[in-house]
């Protein structure tokens, strides 16, 4: 029996290094919870890249790749930890695309991914706290840190002549991180923040919160919240009581639900979310359309890139062992090498298999900086006639 076990273990080890097999990737996103309307678009993005690589038959001697999804709930750190635990220990995934929200991502990274040595690439966790976490080189993100978003938002507001603003943020790591980084950037640029107050998600009524914000005043209200949650509640109450007319929406608020909830009532409000322009994005959008989903959905392109990076890094390292391929991620993401756009993953695998270098550009102009996070391009949006209109990129 002992010999048999030993033999099985040995053959498992050998199988880990060579030979075609089925590699599992985990997708841990908030399919329920405050960002549930964004999760399907992200899942589709990630699965698009996985399918592309799997169908090419060029990864690790023709290995196939399959996705295993799990619900990270976005807000419940314990549930997210349990989900990632299941993905790693029960499903045996070799890398994870996720988590979705910052607090949940920090928890599952600290409690499960790091102890088990599995790579996590988050498409959408943007808290500045993730930049300098102890991660053993296992954590990356294809979205930029909110420290950068705070600067961009402050800049957009300055250019639109808004000198004073009230901030309301959702009471979690994402909200607090972005609200603080925005306040610092806005004040450094000479603006005044009249108040920086938290709101809790899931309440029936936000009139008390809005009353406090209205008392503090300001030219605009910065709503650092979730569009399927308290963020919309605050905007609703502010519109009803006439407390504010202009709103500034960061990434958590820019979604189709915004148009559905408020329509023309928020004309003239503006905001930004991470999204690149250019050939890569165009290609991704048409690929998404062909696959039957909306590629403009927030963080869908980032999810595609996250999955692509993991798979290209595996090819580069010649193994799907996270402890080895984690070091190749920065390699494939950045220069030098031939530039790779969405839809060219097969081409990238060919180059890598021949021993060449690739520079993955992807759908969002991926350029990983610092400890492995996107440098960040943001698209500036504006609400015109009740619809979200893209006015520029920065």
């Amino acid at each position, binding site marked *: 029996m002992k010999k048999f076990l030993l033999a099985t273990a040995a053959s498992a080890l050998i199988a880990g290094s060579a030979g075609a097999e089925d590699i599992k990737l985990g997708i841990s996103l908030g399919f329920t919870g405050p960002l549930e309307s964004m999760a399907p678009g992200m899942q589709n993005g990630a699965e698009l890249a996985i399918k592309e690589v799997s169908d090419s038959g060029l990864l690790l001697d023709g290995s196939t790749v399959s996705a295993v999804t799990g619900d990270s709930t976005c807000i419940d750190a314990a549930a997210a930890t349990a989900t990632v635990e299941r993905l790693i220990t029960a499903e045996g995934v070799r890398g994870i695309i996720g988590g979705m929200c910052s607090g949940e991502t920090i928890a599952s990274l600290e409690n499960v991914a790091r102890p088990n040595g599995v790579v996590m690439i988050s498409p959408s966790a943007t808290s500045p706290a993730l930049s300098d976490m102890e991660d053993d080189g296992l954590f990356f993100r294809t979205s930029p840190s909110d420290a950068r978003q705070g600067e961009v938002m402050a800049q957009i507001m300055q250019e639109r002549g808004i000198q004073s603003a009230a901030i309301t943020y959702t*009471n979690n790591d994402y909200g607090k991180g972005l609200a603080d980084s925005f306040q610092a950037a806005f004040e450094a640029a000479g603006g005044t923040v*009249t*108040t920086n*107050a*938290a*709101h*809790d998600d*899931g*309440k*029936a*009524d936000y*009139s*008390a*919160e809005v*009353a*406090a914000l*209205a*008392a*503090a*005043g300001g030219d605009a209200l910065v709503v650092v919240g979730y569009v399927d949650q308290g963020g919309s*509640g605050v905007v609703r109450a502010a519109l*009803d*009581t*006439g407390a504010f007319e202009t709103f500034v929406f960061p990434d958590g608020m820019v979604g189709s639900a915004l148009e559905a909830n408020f329509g023309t009532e928020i004309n003239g409000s503006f905001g930004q979310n991470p999204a690149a322009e250019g050939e890569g994005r165009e290609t991704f959008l048409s690929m998404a359309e062909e696959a039957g989903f909306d590629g403009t959905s927030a963080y869908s392109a980032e999810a595609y890139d996250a999955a692509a990076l993991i798979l290209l890094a595996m090819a580069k390292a010649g193994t799907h062992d996270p402890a080895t391929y984690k070091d190749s991620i920065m390699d494939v993401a950045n220069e030098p090498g031939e530039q790779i756009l969405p839809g060219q993953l097969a081409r990238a695998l060919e180059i890598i298999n021949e021993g060449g270098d690739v520079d993955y550009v992807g759908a969002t102009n991926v350029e990983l900086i610092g400890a492995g996070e996107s440098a960040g391009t943001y698209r500036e949006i504006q609400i015109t006639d009740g619809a979200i209109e893209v006015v520029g990129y920065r």
Partner: protein
Amino acid sequence: MDILNALVVFLNFVFIPAAAYGAQLALGALGVTLIYGILRFSNFAHGDTMAFGTAIVILLTWGLQALGVSIQPLPTALLALVPAIALTAVLVLVTDRLVYRFYRKQKAAPIIFVMASVGVMFVMNGLTRLLIGVNEQRMDDGARFIIDVRTFREMTGLTEGLALRSTQALTVGLAFVVMIALFWFLNRTRSGKAMRAYSDNEDLALLSGIDPERVVRLTWIIAAGLMVIAGSLYGLDKSYRPFNYFQILLPIFAAAIVGGLGNPLGAIAGGFLVAFSEVAVTYPWVRVVGYLAPWYDPGQGNLMQLLGTEYKFAVSFVILIVVLLFRPTGLFRGKSV
């Protein structure tokens, strides 16, 4: 002009929201107090039964909307109230038959009833989630505003705006009608008098030929009506999410206890007292003071707010504790807790 502006700010941010919230709490507290007065226990399932009744209202409203029925400018949900009350009444009567009647026969202590109602609360909770799910649902249609901020500013020329949502006016109006009807029923009709007699002294009521089971049934039916109306008004005015109905249980109980459990007048007063305290304590008064006393400078960044809005629920707790310490029977001399 400044005094008018101060008044408008006060009305817009304190008085109107607190009055609507108070009316919703008062209706909820009336139901709690009625059950306490006649069935002699604190019904913890009240909030979740409200959620269930409102879920039925929402489903019926959707049905009516799909059929194209509407009573513009009033919300269609009002039409759905009556059948929803009937369905909820059936549900609570079945619950009474299955759960509470057994303990009544046993002449169980009130605390056992309370624990049984906690069990009922969890079941109701689950039923609601099975019926409609956990997410936020919308049912309001009809005109949104009676006066909106922009019209008000144009009409009056004041710098401050005032908004009165139609659901807020509807809440206060309907609550008022329901309360008058309830008092008329309790004081003027034979059945109402029987209920009060049963509440005052069970044995004496039995001796004078009052059928206790009939009184109990009547109480449940009236309570179901109050629950569905309170829940629907809350859902129309704010938003419907089953979990929120569990959360408003605390202010509802605070209202009923402050007014004096078992005393309907106290429940109404308690509802408004709790609502106005919650809003007034967490409201930043800086703008009102700014208009009334322009010479007073509170200093940069001082909003003159006693408590942060996240401590809204704490206000109910504080009121409860103070009342229980100094006047355990409540402001209107109800039964002692």
